[in-house]
């Protein structure tokens, strides 16, 4: 037993080193004064300064956050409706097709989703004159479409693992459907909705392939700018940007975990 757990511990430790070494290397190199990224030239913050003076990156970051915010919010509304329809509304005509369409974007390669939406937008522009040109609005439509699938799956999982007795009790006491949804169901599935929103936000913020297809000239999102910079090689500014993004995510995940544990503790307390 002893020998096996030594093997287990060391291989798992190697796994965690593998997971974190590149991230740590990236963070250390972001403070490197040398322009030759991997040749150490002493500690420096100059890449952070040049990052904040880079209008192209700042503009792209603002555009990406705006798109991610709108897409995540719309995806949560549509995804919650879809998840609710799949788990609470019983059988209806076309349910098979509906559930197929809801989950298919999860297995669709990004290049196909991107290409197909671009060709749709071009065809629609030819036929109806809308959308005229491509930009933030077409990226948002594309992101809502693939993000709502993730939200729907999360909400559906939460709803089907949830006891229906609370909703039934409310109905027995005469709650109207809208009351029932907003006062009973929605508070109960709010953790799923929050994690769905966060996931949609991150997915949208991180998407390179789909946005590259459906965006127009002058509407580069942050991943598109990063990609065009790093395609040519390692860039110290991108290291600084990556460090900042990792920091934000680490704080966010930390706060989320803390909040989750606090809630669990509250729920674990006996009702008085």
């Amino acid at each position: 037993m002893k020998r096996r757990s030594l093997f287990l511990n060391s291989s798992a430790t190697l796994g965690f080193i593998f997971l974190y070494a590149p991230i740590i290397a990236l963070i250390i190199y972001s403070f490197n004064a040398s322009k030759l990224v991997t040749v150490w030239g002493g500690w420096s913050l100059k890449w952070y300064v040049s990052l904040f003076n880079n209008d192209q990156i700042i503009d792209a970051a603002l555009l990406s956050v705006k798109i991610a915010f709108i897409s995540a919010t719309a995806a949560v509304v549509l995804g919650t409706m879809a998840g609710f329809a799949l788990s609470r509304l019983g059988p209806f005509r076309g349910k098979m097709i509906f559930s197929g369409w809801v989950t298919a974007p999860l297995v669709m390669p990004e290049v196909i989703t991107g290409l197909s939406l671009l060709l749709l937008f071009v065809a629609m522009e030819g036929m109806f004159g809308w959308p005229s040109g491509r930009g933030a609005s077409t990226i948002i439509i594309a992101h809502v479409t693939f993000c709502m699938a993730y939200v729907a799956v999360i909400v559906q999982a939460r709803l089907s693992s949830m006891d229906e007795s609370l909703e039934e009790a409310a109905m027995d006491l005469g709650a109207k459907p809208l009351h029932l949804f907003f006062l009973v169901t929605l508070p109960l599935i709010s953790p799923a909705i929050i994690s769905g929103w966060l996931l949609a936000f991150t997915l949208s913020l991180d998407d390179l392939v789909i946005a590259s297809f459906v965006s127009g000239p002058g509407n580069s999102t942050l991943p598109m700018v990063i990609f065009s910079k790093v395609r040519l090689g390692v860039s110290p500014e991108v290291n600084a940007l990556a460090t900042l993004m990792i920091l934000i995510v680490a704080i966010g995940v930390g706060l989320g975990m803390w909040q989750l544990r606090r809630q669990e503790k509250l729920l674990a307390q006996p009702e008085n």
Partner: protein
Amino acid sequence: MSGKPPVQAGPTVAAVDAITQGLAKYNFFRRVSWGRLAVIAVPMLWLAVFFFVPFLVVFKISLAETAIAIPPYTALLEWVGDMEEAYVTLKLNLGNYLYLLDDVFYLDAYLSSIKIAGISTFCTLLVAFPIAYLMARSNGSTRALLLALVILPFWTSFLLRVYAWMGILKKNGLVNDILMGLGIVDEPLTMLQTDFAVYLGIVYTYLPFMVLPLYSALEKLDMTLLEAAEDLGSRPVTSFFLITLPLSLPGIVAGCLLVFIPAVGEFVIPALLGSPDTLMIGRVLWDEFFLNRDWPMASAVAIMMLIILVLPIMLIRNSQGKEESA
């Protein structure tokens, strides 16, 4: 504190009442069936327009010819005629598909995508298993910490995680510096822009997708089975292959699908870490579209990809879902 209800019912009820009364003016929300219809119809309509119809458009354009125009393809239906005689001509160009079948390049790209995704998925499984096993065997707080450590990279940018390897693998990068410093190699190794870098990139970026389903399968594993096996004289290796592995199979299958599916259509990893010769179908489609500006050919590649790669995956997933619910 104890008298306070968990949900502040008062103002919320009032707000919902106001909304309901406002909506009640319109006949369609007064009846449940209309509300029900709306909840189904709105997302369904969205998916029909922005998910289903696009594939019909892709299929249509895959049958067109390239043209120097905006948009750069020919129309299938053409209206020919005057006041006396009028025709609608339909011209379908199967040339793109014939070319796909004829040129070995595309077949190679499909096969090579499957090969690269398959090998990387297996390597991911090898790296992920000890991590998931350790997590499942740890106690409460260690487990939560390890779980957070696995999930954290998943929330950071995918693009930046791939990029991080560029600085490590390049000629004067971290790995070569360490290897040369230790005197293990005399000349820097070429690691960036190789298939090896692509495998590494896939294993690295998709590791959390494999660890999480493995962990949830291993967590349910009944330890008394392993103890019983040990008592009966089974060696640890034997117990692993006869008990642990078969019982964690659902997690293995789920994790492998979660890694294989996105890996097979991957574009970013071969574009940043691979060599120009690293053939992956996602990259072929991208180049066909962005470099050659051949929209009909890109569409044909996409349709073939749907038939060869995506449809089988969806069928496997469906049969899996049925097995689980059965």
